[in-house]
């Protein structure tokens, strides 16, 4: 496993100068961080030259404080049994990335999801306008600055009388006039 990982790291670093690796996982995982321009070529290289033929997932992490999105591509090699995470950071105000659905057709679906849920644009993506959300008019809902509770409060009618975040044990003991036993007190919040 270790030689296999070192081999992958050496080959990637020899071909892509901007790639930095993270190799402190005890299991079959490797991380690479690259610039966003390198994404199509590194994925092409992983797929065609190194046997990472399966695209497991494309995901996105919202780094609100740093003003960036981190897009994560997870590829899997059935021959070596290793998964490689390829990560890149893009600007949060102008989230544009190269479309990779000519490498894997199924990337189209993930890209549509990211476009709808995070507002990440993929250049040349051919897809219908809507993916899951119908008639959505708000901002992309998976962004961290989107306040779901406030949006739900504004959009939907709430039944009055609901009080959230109550201490269940305290509320029930107060309602029924019971003492909280000592052994239960140490689990207090």
């Amino acid at each position, binding site marked *: 496993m270790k030689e296999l990982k070192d081999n992958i790291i050496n080959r990637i670093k020899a071909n892509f100068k901007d790639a930095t690796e993270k190799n402190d996982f005890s299991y079959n995982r490797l991380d690479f961080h690259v610039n966003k321009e390198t994404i199509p070529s590194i994925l092409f290289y992983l797929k065609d030259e190194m046997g990472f033929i399966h695209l497991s997932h494309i995901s996105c992490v919202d780094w609100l404080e740093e003003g960036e999105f981190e897009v994560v591509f997870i590829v899997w090699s059935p021959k070596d049994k290793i998964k490689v995470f390829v990560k890149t950071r893009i600007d949060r105000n102008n989230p544009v990335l190269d479309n990779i659905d000519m490498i894997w057709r199924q990337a189209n679906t993930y890209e549509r999801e990211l476009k709808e849920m995070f507002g990440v644009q993929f250049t040349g993506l051919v897809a219908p306008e809507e993916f899951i959300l119908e*008639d959505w008019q*708000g901002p992309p809902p998976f962004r961290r600055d*989107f306040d*779901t509770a406030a949006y*739900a409060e504004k959009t*939907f009618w709430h039944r009055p009388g609901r009080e*959230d975040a109550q201490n269940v044990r305290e509320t029930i003991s107060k309602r029924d006039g019971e003492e909280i036993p000592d052994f239960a007190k140490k689990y207090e919040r």
Partner: protein
Amino acid sequence: MYNDKNSQKIVDYIQNWTRKHSIWVLAYGTGCGAIEIPPTMTSRYDSERLGIRGAATPRQADVLLITGYLTVKTLKRVIRVYEQMQDPKYVIGFGSCTINGGMYFDSYNTIKVLDKYLPVDVYINGCMPRPEAVIQGFVKLQKRIGEGRATGAKHYKENLEWYRANQKKIIPNWVMPEYNW
């Protein structure tokens, strides 16, 4: 004699009595609560002994079960299904999501209170309700039908504008057929 008030009462009584013993439920699951319907229908809890059984299409069904959370996208379909159903028709709100949002109280895409959008005859609470609770809810509905109090469909027809206004508030792109029942 035939338009007599008392004879109408007898007709209503017989009508309600027959209706309450054949509740056909539309096989349509909207949320995770639909997973409780197969055990309710099959041999362990065998709800067919109470006359509760599945129906394949909306036009054959009497009861629309809203099983759990309802997204805005599903609400569109549910309204369409409900309006296609023939009289008599009843709605059962199933699970705490239909009552006050349940664990999806702050979700951006699920409705919180079902009876703003559809007339609910019986609510079954629980997250999720066990088959005993489901059958209890159906028995309650049967009781209400027998007493002639399950008048949700009538209420919907009479207050259609109010319901439509609520529905259109959260479904901005309204491309639905208008039924003239």
